[in-house]
């Protein structure tokens, strides 16, 4: 494999990522499944890098899950997104930072629709004005929050306490990077590095000392896929896609999987539990499963944050094997304690714990 070839492709997919002053839009599900991720992101950006990230409490779901399930019509979701842009305009912001890949895909699809079909933009302006009296501008720049971590990856590396090195062997950790389909597969120009050989997560991994695993099913769906999962009868299909992906990466002995999409993190994490329960198969070494982390969680570990503050204990596949390899200090006794010291219930059947 020639890295020079990849670099040529990456050079063609460099996107402008704003440096400061973002209108931040949260994900619907990330706060439940990875409760430390968005919190870490905002805290790090605001307190350590001194960046301005504004949140508006009137921001709502983008309705992307409803849209992809054929419940929310396109004209409706365009108006919902237009309302978010109106909130951004009213707050005086021009750069949008989107936490969710599904939302990011929705925003890119709608903006591209408006570029190609200006009459849709005019209709949406009318719908929003009639419904709310609001007006909006299109953002000057639009970034997924993984783009922003990518942009500041060197600043993180400069503060790194736990680089992506196996402290027992001194070797770089082998890390699978998985990009959410809606990040760049629809519109490669919106993704750092494009769609075929994206570099948004790979760039973080390399900068922080790790090794990116390039395996045959690298591009394959994580197994989420709205129609595969939301329609209950299709869930076996969802599961089989995840199994295919993990079977393909297994020979490369990855130490962890890094993702930038809520659905991908959730399904690659939770389906490992399901597959293990169904047939006893695990995909990591030593009978363990492979931890699946968000880019904020990984950045937090690299920076030396407490893994329980990052919320790693709320994953199905526990991260202790990875923490030991990285040499991250952690206290098992505080894993399921609240900040004021109360003991929370300890989940049963945790993997890797």
């Amino acid at each position, binding site marked *: *494999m*020639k890295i*020079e*070839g*990849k670099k*040529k*492709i990456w050079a063609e997919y460099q996107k402008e990522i704003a440096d400061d002053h973002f209108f931040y839009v949260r994900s619907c599900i990330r706060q439940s499944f990875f409760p430390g991720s968005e919190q870490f992101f905002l805290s790090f950006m605001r307190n350590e890098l001194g960046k301005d990230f504004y949140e508006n409490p009137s921001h709502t779901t983008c309705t992307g899950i409803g849209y992809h399930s054929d419940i929310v019509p396109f004209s409706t979701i365009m108006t919902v997104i237009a309302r978010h842009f109106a909130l951004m305009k009213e707050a005086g912001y021009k750069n949008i930072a989107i936490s969710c890949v599904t939302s990011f895909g929705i925003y890119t699809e709608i903006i591209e629709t408006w570029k190609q079909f200006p009459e849709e933009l005019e209709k949406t302006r009318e719908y929003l004005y009639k419904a709310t009296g609001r007006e909006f501008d299109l953002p000057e720049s639009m970034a997924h929050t993984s783009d922003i971590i990518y942009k500041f990856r060197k600043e993180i590396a400069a503060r790194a306490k736990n680089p992506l090195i196996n402290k027992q062997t001194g070797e770089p950790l082998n890390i699978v990077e998985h990009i959410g389909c809606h990040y760049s597969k629809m519109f490669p120009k919106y993704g750092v590095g*494009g*769609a*075929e*050989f994206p570099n948004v997560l790979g760039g973080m991994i390399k900068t922080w000392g790790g090794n990116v695993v*390039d*395996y*045959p*099913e*690298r*591009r394959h769906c994580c197994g989420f896929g709205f129609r595969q999962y939301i329609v209950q009868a299709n869930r076996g299909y969802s599961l089989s896609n995840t199994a295919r992906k993990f079977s393909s990466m297994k*020979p*490369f002995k990855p130490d962890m999987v890094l993702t930038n999409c809520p659905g991908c993190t959730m399904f690659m994490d939770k389906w490992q539990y399901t597959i293990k329960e169904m047939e006893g198969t695990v995909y990591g070494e030593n009978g363990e499963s492979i931890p699946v982390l968000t880019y904020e969680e990984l950045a937090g570990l690299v920076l030396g944050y407490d893994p329980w503050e990052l919320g790693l204990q709320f994953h199905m596949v526990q991260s202790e094997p990875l923490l030991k390899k990285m040499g991250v200090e952690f206290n098992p006794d505080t894993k399921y304690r609240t900040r004021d010291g109360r003991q929370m219930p300890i989940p049963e059947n945790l993997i890797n714990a």
Partner: protein
Amino acid sequence: MPEMDSKVVIVGGGAAGMEAAGQLARAGYLVTLIEKEHTTGGHIRNWYHLFPDRRDSLEVISYLEKEISHNKITLITGTTVSGLERNNGAIILKTAEGTEITADAVVLSTGFDLFRSEKKEEYGYGIYDNVISSADLEVMFREGEIKRHNGDAPAKIGFVHCVGSRDEKAGNLYCSKLCCVTAVKQAMEIKERISDAKVFCFYMDMRMGGAHYEELYRESQEKYGINYIRGKVSEVSESINNKLIVKVEDTLVGRPLRMELDMLVLMAGMEMRESAINLAKASGLSTGENRFFSVADQHFGSNKSNIQGVFYAGTCTAPLNITETISHARGAVIDVIEYLKTRKN
């Protein structure tokens, strides 16, 4: 000016330009042949055997070199023409180096660029060691050895047709016309060198539109056992043992396929040469949707441009094979002579 003292400048020293130069010189005209590379011959020089009769390309080069070996031909190499304009009945050509050359008539035979296979990112050309282009394979044929990056002979080889052709995403809706038959020829040549190799061609349609092409296609199946799978490759990746994993749909069976191959050959299509696109923009020469030069009339003026005294020869107008290119160049010569005989300043 007496007509026989007229000076014709030919831009592009590939098959079309060389043939036109030779024909015009023998007809008595002063010819200046300008080639941007340091040698003439164009793409043919990089090819090994030609379809459909497997002639060694050096024979064609040898013929063309004899064509331009004439005392009325001045050859200028290493020079790029960047623009031209008509002025008082003459054509003034400007070179990238800033010099000007005056001509009574101009033949543009700027040829084509091979589609840059790395633009089809999903195939991993330039990234995966054993993904090569049809042009790379010709170099291997010339050097005498077909081998993988690690030096081993490949046992399973795939050919991907229509790389950069008939592809809206690549911006090329047209058929490059020569890639199908080139794949057939190359597949047979591989089987001749590695007899137990398994060879698969992944095609959209087999376009065997030239003399003896269909026969070659049949022979490749009957005598050589080449497997033709109707389907477009969707993605290529690499396994842990450096084999290529190819995903393709077999549209005749209606099933997706996942194959492990040792080598994948991308049949790169033909595109308008980039320098010729710039020349067209700088000179007001019309180009078509496919970016090749637009000819004045598809049936009766395929050598004529929209500028009086400027003519086209060869693959700067459309994908053509060598036979067609030579014929097209001869057609340009007839138009040039007629123009010079009848023109009024």
